């Protein structure tokens, strides 16, 4: 059984051997894909971030008018000092920051209460009609985030800003106080009613996954109800709650629609609206300082969350194995709870849509007489008296173009997101445990910590000018696709990884042993086994892109107008009814999309698709 020794080698042989080993590593599929993804993410994420910082610390052309000694492109702390000190710091940075925080904290708490209670009622009680409640509970999230704000305005607006009376005034005969019409209170309520879905989904998933045996075990040992809740249920649900907190908090921090609709009329600025304001004023350097502040805030939130919950669990839903949990008996309050929930859901779904619809049927906003009823905003011919002379939405070629832009953007984004998902998933899963794989995964995670509006700002910073071989992309449709795909990177990577994980590695290895090359393994083994996951991911991305506003509001131009941004422009232009028609169309599209997803993948897809 003697095994001959391996012959000694000369140094040139050794060099040849290590060259071969290196080139084999370099040409292995996962490495090629990883490196390609690194390159893509470098351009799409790293350079823009770098540019953003760079612009805040160099003189911009715009500054020359203000500071004569400035030399364009030279280093300066001007923007930072200006934005962080003195009266300007207070107006442009600290006050908006305080407003953003107020809104974020308020919305998060309110959303927690609403989402948590709904989750408990649906998962853990014997309340009648829980199935329907469960399905309807996610609808507010599917609708565009500023739907409620728009509806709120229709109902509660008063005439402090010199407008027309709202429905409230029409019904009650007296205008609502300003704090109820505009500012933090309505913004918090509207955001919470949109984002409570996070808590609802996270907490219900956690509650479902808790084996009620655990609680029963506590019961048998004679622990009190309260003690069980505190010692067993809470620790298991806490990670879900914290995940909801971080998602909601960072989303609200970067949200644009609500604060723009409900805050601007009384000059209640948040960081998000202030960034847009500064950019519109040509103050790029200032706007980007605010964007960085926003990003740092988001990073801090996530960091704290991860310290509290641990890295992985923080954004992973706990696997949804269906234990038959013991339902809490609501007894005689059963009906009361059910009625309360029904009223709640009518208030957040049916009433806003009804208000918007009603509003679109009024020729002149605020005139509630029957003679004011019209279809002008839907199918009216162009009339210089209304809507700046634009014809009704359905006859408006501009809107058709806009709708087509939105659909095109959503399709492109969904396609590339799914494609990157496949590539990222493969590169990350096949390289599990290697540094390269970790690097790819971490880079793909970065857009998650950048609030939407800041991400848009980053892209202006990067693509407003020519950059190496890349022409200035500002104002092009391609830029909207790139920014949407980039923002979806974390979702791509997560859904790609989870889809790949489902395909056991030995299924591919069996293909390797059978002699199949990469393409054969992919097309005949991996893709067939993961396609349903990618399909629902595709549709999910379609929906989220369709109703995304914060991300693209800074990047659209008249030529690349989208439905989402169009509503905002109509609102700002005073054409509220037109805005509301467009929102209704948008809602119709996303709800239809969601219905199709449901057909495709029997529920659960939104839960998967939320980028959780």
């Amino acid at each position, binding site marked *: *059984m*003697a*095994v*001959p*020794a*391996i*012959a000694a*080698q000369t140094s040139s*042989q*050794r060099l*040849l*051997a*290590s*060259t*071969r*080993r290196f080139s*084999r590593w370099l040409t292995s599929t996962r490495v090629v894909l990883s490196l390609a993804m690194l390159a893509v993410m470098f351009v799409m994420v790293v350079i823009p971030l770098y540019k953003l910082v760079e612009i805040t610390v160099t003189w911009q052309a715009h500054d020359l008018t203000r500071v004569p000694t400035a030399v364009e492109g030279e280093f300066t702390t001007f923007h930072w000092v200006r934005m962080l000190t003195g009266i300007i710091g207070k107006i442009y940075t600290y006050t908006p920051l305080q407003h953003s925080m107020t809104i974020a904290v308020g919305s998060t708490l309110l959303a927690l209460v609403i989402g948590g209670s709904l989750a408990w009622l649906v998962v853990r009680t014997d309340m009648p009609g829980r199935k329907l409640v469960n399905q309807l509970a996610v609808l507010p999230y599917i609708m565009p985030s500023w739907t409620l704000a728009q509806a709120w305005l229709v109902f509660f607006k008063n005439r402090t800003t010199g407008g027309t009376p709202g429905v409230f005034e029409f019904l009650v005969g007296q205008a609502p106080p300003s704090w109820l019409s505009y500012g933090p209170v309505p913004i918090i309520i509207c955001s919470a009613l949109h984002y409570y879905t996070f808590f609802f989904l996270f907490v219900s998933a956690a509650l479902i996954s808790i084996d009620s045996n655990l609680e029963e075990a506590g019961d048998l040992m004679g622990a009190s109800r309260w003690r069980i809740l505190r010692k067993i249920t809470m620790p298991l649900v806490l990670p879900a709650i914290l995940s909801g907190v971080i998602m909601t908090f960072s989303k609200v921090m970067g949200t644009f629609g609500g604060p723009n609709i409900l805050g601007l009329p009384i000059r209640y600025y948040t960081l998000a609206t202030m960034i847009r304001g500064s950019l519109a004023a040509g103050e790029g350097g200032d706007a980007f300082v605010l964007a960085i502040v926003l990003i740092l805030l988001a990073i801090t939130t996530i960091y704290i969350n991860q310290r509290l919950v641990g890295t992985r669990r923080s954004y992973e839903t706990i696997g949804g194995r269906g234990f038959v949990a013991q339902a809490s008996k609501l007894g005689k309050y059963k009906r009361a709870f059910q009625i309360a929930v029904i009223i709640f859901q009518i208030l957040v779904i049916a009433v806003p849509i009804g208000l918007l619809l009603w509003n679109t049927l009024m020729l002149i906003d605020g005139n509630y007489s029957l003679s004011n009823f019209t279809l002008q905003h839907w199918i009216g011919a162009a009339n210089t008296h209304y809507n700046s002379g634009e014809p009704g939405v359905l006859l408006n070629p501009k809107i058709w173009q806009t709708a087509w832009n939105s659909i095109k953007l959503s399709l492109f984004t969904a396609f590339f997101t799914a494609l990157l998902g496949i590539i990222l998933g493969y590169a990350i899963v096949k390289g599990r*445990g290697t540094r390269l794989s970790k690097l790819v995964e971490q880079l793909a995670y970065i857009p998650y910590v950048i609030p939407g509006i800041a991400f848009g700002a980053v892209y202006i910073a990067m693509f407003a000018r020519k950059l190496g071989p890349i022409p200035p992309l500002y104002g092009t449709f391609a830029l909207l696709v790139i920014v949407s795909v980039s923002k979806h990177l974390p979702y791509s990577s997560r859904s790609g990884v989870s889809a790949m994980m489902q395909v*056991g590695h*030995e*299924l591919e*290895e*069996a*293909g*390797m*042993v*059978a*002699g*199949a*090359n990469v393409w*054969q393994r992919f097309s*005949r*083994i991996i893709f*067939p*086994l993961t396609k349903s996951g990618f399909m629902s991911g595709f549709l999910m991305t379609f929906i989220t892109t369709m109703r995304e506003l914060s991300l693209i509001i800074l990047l659209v131009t008249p030529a690349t107008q989208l439905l989402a941004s169009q509503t905002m422009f109509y609102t700002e232009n005073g054409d509220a009814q037109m805005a509301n028609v467009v929102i209704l169309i948008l809602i119709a599209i996303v709800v239809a999309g969601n219905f199709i997803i449901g057909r495709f993948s029997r529920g659960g897809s939104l839960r998967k698709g939320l980028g959780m």
Partner: protein
Amino acid sequence: MSTTITIKHLSKHFGTVVALDDVSLVIEPETFVTLLGPSGCGKTTLLRCVAGLEDPDGGEIYVGNKLVFSHPQGISLPPGQRELGLVFQNYALWPHMKVDKNITFALEIQKMPKVEMQKRVKESLQEVQMEGYEDRYPREMSGGQQQRIALARMLAYRPKVFLMDEPLSNLDARLRMDMRVELKRLHHISGATTIYVTHDQVEALTMSTTIAVMKEGRLQQFDTPDKIYHFPSNLFVADFIGNPKVNLLDGVVSGKNSVDLGKFKIPINTSYATGKVVVGIRPEDITIFERPEPGAVEFSAYSVLPAGADSTIIARLGEMELTIRVMGISKIRMDEKIWLKFDPQTLNLYDKESGLLIAS
């Protein structure tokens, strides 16, 4: 179909964990070689390195005359070019393909004519006694049936070497016995060189031509089942192989042909061992007497465990405890006095320090 597999100085690390540590083996043509060891001993890694699913950090592998892996030369052929077949622990049948597609996958890649493929499907299903299952999806079959299909899938493209990674570990005891019979037959008929990974010593002993016992990435002994069982080359192998376990007793060589075990001395068949040793005695190599016998040592029966075909008796003398195995149902009662006799021919002597076999 006579392929030698030569493994030279193979090493493999995962981070700081050493999975393979300078393993060298020559697997002779048409043999059934089992890689045996506790979990984490590197046996599966070794198999995966041969298959080409893992690249070692050092060493060389030949399949037949073909150099399939060489660290010094920087060569590593992809699995598909190594002409070997692999059966996975969890079968790895492609869940979206019916049985016939699973089987023809490799053949399609080889661009085999349709007619020939259909013939192969039929043949290989026959070989595993699964005719008529062509149209089933994997999930529509039991674990045992899936295992057979996995075998058929490998047989269909007629690899020169069969690699099997704990193929029976997911089956229940009864099925496992049946499959052992089938696998041994299959190897007997095909004559393909086979490397079989298992942690089950009974499986290794019953099926192999040769067993490679591994521990912590190192090869401990590479020998026939007979040698492995009767002449384990070190204490680890002695202790790992055999059920009930071997008796390992500390002793001192007290003179020519005698080991002092403390309470008593036993005769041995060696003249050159000196100092501290460990004596290994298989439970079935101890003879029990129910009354005093010249040369036998008095013990007491601490526990008696009859199991039908044989019985295990735990005997005690002070601190010393011995396991004895006798055929049939033992009549000995617990706490009875018994007298044990040791056969110098069957004893193995190990060096206390190194644990290596000194004399047998």
